[in-house]
């Protein structure tokens, strides 16, 4: 851990990717939900909440399965390893008597967090004072070796520098390199490259920025409950750090290039991740596909405006009917080609691996998430709340629609007219337009119509989505010791072959 003031962050693979801001705990004016003196049981209860220990089964925590002598079969740093870490935290807490000062207790918690990150998770921690010294910032990075370890633990897939020599079909679609599991921590990393077809960025590390960030967040998210830290005011904010140089370079391209450019989408994905890249890919796709109907539609509209209604020819009828058919064809093709494009991206970015690997997610009609404590799949903890939210959201939407219709009836009953010259214009359409705009703008912000689930502190790593009709709660590669250990490949992979 380095202390002091650094204006220029070190470059290289150890560059920090995440920052935590701690408030100045010696500031007595802070309104924290912690009493002035903390009893032993209270201190333990708070620490359990902060370090996800209350999620573990009692037997796993109270009777340590891991001893100081490392067991060769120990699923290292897997979810079960949370128990290992927590055993140490509990062991240390057992010596903890009542804490007489709140400041001491806060210092203890922060000290434990830094110790955990640096010693147990083997991350590079840099503590700095912010300008004005009102806060302390903790910058988190890791070495390449540490990233390799995380990749192995989290089952990130890599590419092997081997060319396929079987399966003609596979040859056609496969890139020059192949996917494989992350390297063994002791293996030579030069055989491995980045986990996507789009190639690696020119860096000393084999990991892209995106991979590093993802690995890092997943790594400490297993043992640290951010919600609790933030709710108790022990962390004022935490976020991923921008890489200014990369961002400016991306923005320069972004301003000049159309969103339909595949290379730009790759760049966006490398920096911001798949969700945002897919969003912009969809925007680009939609704009491209709207061009033709926009031009044709404007032509048809002008034609109907120019021609008086009293002289409607068969020719004009045919134009409108043809345009209707064109819109139907356009809407169908647009949806179809987007689906194809999305699948293409999904394959190119190796997103399919998640759905391939997590087979029990794919065919499970109910949502499940990986429980790090019990090492089994479980229903998400907010499942009950989700159903309730859905029900309330549906009721609110129905109520909103009814209100909307009522408002429309009210507006029409007013018979709003305005006379310009000799002609009278109906203002109801305009007022209805305002009403629709307001209603559609307000409802999404009511936050009930969309069931978002709990907001994850690290920003959607446990993103809700659907894979093959099943609701998938967790898509990012997560440690799955049951699969990892039972896999015959693993045994062979690690030397038995």
């Amino acid at each position, binding site marked *: 851990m380095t202390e002091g003031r650094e*204006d*220029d962050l070190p470059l290289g693979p150890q560059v920090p990717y995440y*920052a935590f801001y701690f408030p100045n705990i010696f500031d007595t004016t802070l309104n924290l939900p912690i009493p002035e003196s903390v009893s032993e049981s209270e201190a333990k209860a708070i620490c359990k909440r902060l370090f996800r220990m209350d999620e573990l089964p009692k037997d796993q925590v109270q009777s340590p399965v891991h001893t100081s*002598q490392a*067991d*060769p079969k120990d699923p*290292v740093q897997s979810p079960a390893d949370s128990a290992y870490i927590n055993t140490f935290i509990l*062991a240390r807490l057992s010596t903890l008597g009542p804490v007489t000062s709140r400041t001491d207790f806060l210092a203890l918690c922060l000290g434990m967090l830094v*110790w955990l990150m640096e010693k147990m998770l*083997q991350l590079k921690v840099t503590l700095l004072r*912010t*300008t004005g010294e009102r806060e302390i*910032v903790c910058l988190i990075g890791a070495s390449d070796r540490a990233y390799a370890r995380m990749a192995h633990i989290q089952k990130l897939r890599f590419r*092997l520098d*081997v060319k396929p020599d079987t*399966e003609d*079909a*596979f040859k056609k679609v496969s890139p020059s390199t*192949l996917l494989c599991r992350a390297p*063994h921590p*002791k293996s030579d990393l030069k*055989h491995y490259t980045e986990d996507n077809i789009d190639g690696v960025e020119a860096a000393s590390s084999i990991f892209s920025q995106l991979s590093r*960030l993802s690995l890092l967040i997943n790594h400490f998210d297993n043992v640290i409950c951010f919600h609790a830290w933030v709710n108790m005011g022990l962390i004022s904010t935490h*976020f*991923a*750090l921008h890489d200014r140089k990369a961002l400016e370079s991306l923005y320069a391209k972004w301003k000049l290039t159309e969103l339909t450019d595949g290379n730009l989408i790759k760049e966006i994905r490398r920096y911001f991740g*798949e*969700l945002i890249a897919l969003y*912009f890919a969809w*925007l680009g796709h939609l*704009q491209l596909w709207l061009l033709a109907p926009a031009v044709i539609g*404007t032509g048809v509209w002008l034609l109907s405006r120019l021609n008086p209604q009293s002289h409607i020819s068969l020719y004009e009828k045919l134009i409108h009917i043809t*345009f209707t*058919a064109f*819109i139907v064809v356009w809407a169908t*093709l647009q*949806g*179809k080609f987007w689906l194809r494009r999305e*699948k293409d991206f*999904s394959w190119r970015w190796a997103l399919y691996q*998640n759905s391939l690997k997590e087979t029990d997610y794919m065919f499970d009609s109910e949502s499940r998430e990986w429980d790090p404590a019990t090492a089994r799949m479980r229903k998400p903890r907010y499942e009950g709340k989700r159903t309730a939210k859905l029900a309330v959201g549906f009721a609110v939407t129905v109520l909103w629609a009814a209100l909307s219709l009522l408002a*429309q009836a009210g507006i*029409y009953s007013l*018979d709003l007219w305005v006379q310009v010259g000799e002609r009278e214009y*109906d203002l109801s*359409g*305009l007022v209805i*337009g305002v009403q629709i*705009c307001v209603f559609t703008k307000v409802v*999404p912000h009511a936050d009930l119509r969309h069931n978002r689930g709990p907001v994850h502190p690290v920003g959607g*790593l446990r993103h809700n*989505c*659907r*894979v093959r009709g099943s609701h998938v709660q967790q*898509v*990012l590669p997560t440690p799955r010791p049951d699969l990892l250990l039972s896999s015959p*490949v693993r045994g062979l992979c*690690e*030397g038995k*072959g």
Partner: protein
Amino acid sequence: MAFVKVRASQAYQGKCYESNCLLELNWLLLSLFALQFVFKLAEIVWLFLSHFLKQQHKLQELGPNAPSYEQDKYLNAQVLSFSTYCDLIMNYGYAALFAAGCPVIVLLVLLLTAVQARLDVWRLVRLSRRSGPKTFSSWAGANNFINLLAVLGTMTNPGIIIFSSPYFYDSGEWKLFIFVAIEHCHFLLKILLENTISDEAESKLYSVVRMGKQWCDLKEMELCARLSKPATSPTRQDYDLPTLDPSDKGNF
């Protein structure tokens, strides 16, 4: 809406404005989109005033040599909201459902989408913190909704032309027959297209990827053997992790 109108308004007495419901739909959609542009403009002004200028002010307070991690702190936490995406899909829905009634709205949807895209880029780069990596494989829910809109479009578009426009006023009782015929033709055309341009390529790709994955596993085994990995599973030492003693109750 027409159903509500003819019952609520005394002046219309069961008729559309100037007995032309298509004109009324045009008027409604155009005013709706004009208002959307006004809302968008207001959003840009609001973002500029409430976020951009505020951030600039804070950065000036920090000084010109403020480290990047401190600059990032003053950026917005929320990157892109789901409501933005909903707005875009709704606009697409207007185009897919009512383009036959007001063909020019497709152009307006295009303009709105282009404005939204540029606004999002600016917001993402200049106003927002870096988002955590959000990995997922598909906009599956939204895709289903878009497909549903396309299906509904096969009915609404011919319906508008046949029942609401003046083009088929003289068709009398044949209107329903013409509508059913056109709607069925459209629906058949849609089904034909969907089956002709199938997902076969992607499905094949998917199965090939599955196949390839198995093949990779084999290759991986070979390579692992070649690299002469240790015979045991990775241990704590392999990961260079400390082996701590739980009985050690020292300070940390």
